[in-house]
């Protein structure tokens, strides 16, 4: 089965610091997503990315968040100035075509102190 990989697996940061979460997508998968899951809660959509631009974003995805695919391969999520409430598991997901199976990465657990 195709695999999405994410780095780092864990990240601890101080409030106000910037973090960059990285995702290596499945080749030939054209749609990219970031989700977050606060401990014990549901998976929440953050942003979708297609054709090198954001196609949709949720209300959670405010000006502190940004995504890019700088080298045409890795897909990154940047949080500019982290807040305590940003502590969560962040999942990257890939999809080959619209509304098909989404393959989730193992996640990055972010802890903001």
């Amino acid at each position, binding site marked *: 089965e195709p695999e999405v990989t994410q780095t780092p697996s864990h990240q601890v940061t101080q409030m106000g610091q910037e973090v960059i979460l990285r995702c290596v997508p499945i080749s030939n998968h054209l*749609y990219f*997503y970031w*989700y977050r899951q606060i401990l014990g*809660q*549901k*998976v*929440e*959509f953050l942003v*979708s990315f*297609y054709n090198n631009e954001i*196609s*949709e974003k*949720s209300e959670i995805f405010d000006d502190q968040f940004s995504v890019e695919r700088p080298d045409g391969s890795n897909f990154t999520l940047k949080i500019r100035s982290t807040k305590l409430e940003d502590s969560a598991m962040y*999942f990257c997901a890939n*999809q080959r075509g*619209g*509304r*098909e*199976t*989404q*393959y*989730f*990465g*193992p*996640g990055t657990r972010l802890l903001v102190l």
Partner: protein
Amino acid sequence: GQQVMQIPQYQHVQEGEDFTTYCNSSTTLSNIQWYKQRPGGHPVFLIQLVKSGEVKKQKRLTFQFGEAKKNSSLHITATQTTDVGTYFCAGFYSGAGSYQLTFGKGTKLSVIP
């Protein structure tokens, strides 16, 4: 906003008993997907339902999509300890370019051996 309600939140069953989780949306879904998340793991795609009234089976798992495409269920027959985890439904809503998956809160299944 669009929401997918899922019940129950928790379910404890004896091994061998059946288990059902239900999802409901206030508005029509384009399609619905089901995911399983093991403790400490990431969501893993189980199945996608697209057609009104569709029923799909995977061994002991039976998935249904309602006639109005507003509700869905997952039924597990004769649960095993390997079924432990949280089961999420996630829906796509109709609308051009809408690739945002909206997740239910999940049903956490515990199986008592």
